């Protein structure tokens, strides 16, 4: 099971023109819809915006990971955009503008942990500077897929204790 099974090349957008946060999410949700990952795009967007209201999904480094778990999702999927212009993600003064977005879609009743494990690993890998810089410099969607696969194969297993030196 690989991240490549969750992210379709058509769901990777580089230098996407999105005037604001809602537009960015809407455009990416549209890509997921076209790729057949959603049953109902507007209900899915509602789930994402509901989650967003609980608290902002901006996670630093100019990255946001909006996500929706909803019955409107047919299969787990990821869409990625690097935005042409950064957008404000929240009113929180600590939140820097966002220029890279991972939109995650998870069905309400996901059959197993495998997909969730991949999403968890993706979230962890955002702390990897090399991974972020590969996303920044990607020139094609294939470059993004390569970066995702590379971080996936070099990843340590989840959990475990950090070393003491």
């Amino acid at each position: 099971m690989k991240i490549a099974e969750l992210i379709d090349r058509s769901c990777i957008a580089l230098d996407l023109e999105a005037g604001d946060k809602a537009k960015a999410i809407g455009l990416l949700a549209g890509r997921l819809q076209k790729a057949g990952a959603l049953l109902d795009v507007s209900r899915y967007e509602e789930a994402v915006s509901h989650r967003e209201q609980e608290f902002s999904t901006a996670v630093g480094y100019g990255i946001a990971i909006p996500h929706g778990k909803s019955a409107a999702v047919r299969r787990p999927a990821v869409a990625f955009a690097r935005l042409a212009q950064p957008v404000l993600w929240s009113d929180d003064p600590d939140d820097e503008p966002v220029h890279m977005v991972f939109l995650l879609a998870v069905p309400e009743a996901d059959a197993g942990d495998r997909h969730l494990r991949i999403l968890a690993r993706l979230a962890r890998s955002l702390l990897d500077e090399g991974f972020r810089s590969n996303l920044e410099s990607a020139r094609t969607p294939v470059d993004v897929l390569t970066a995702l696969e590379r971080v996936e194969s070099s990843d340590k297993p989840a959990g475990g204790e950090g070393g003491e030196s």
Partner: protein
Amino acid sequence: MRILAVTACPTGIAHTYMAAEALEREAVKRRHKIKVETQGSMGVENEITAKDVAEADVIIFAVDMNVLRADRFTGKPLVRVGVADAIKKTAKVLEQAEQAATN
């Protein structure tokens, strides 16, 4: 020092795990030993044991919801922050933990 942390967020899909990774990285950078239990969509993982608690100097809750079996940690110095703080202000959270442990 020995640090234990629990991370949890409402959907348990992304922030729980990103916060765990951030805390692990920052703790190692500061030469602490850390174990992070994630309470997310996949349930409880890397579960903290009674032995872990007995040996720990400080506990961090990086959560936006209730911690499951929080009574395990009774009597230990505790720092409680939001899951986003653990991701975006990781160094500050570790500083708080260091202070709580030495007080």
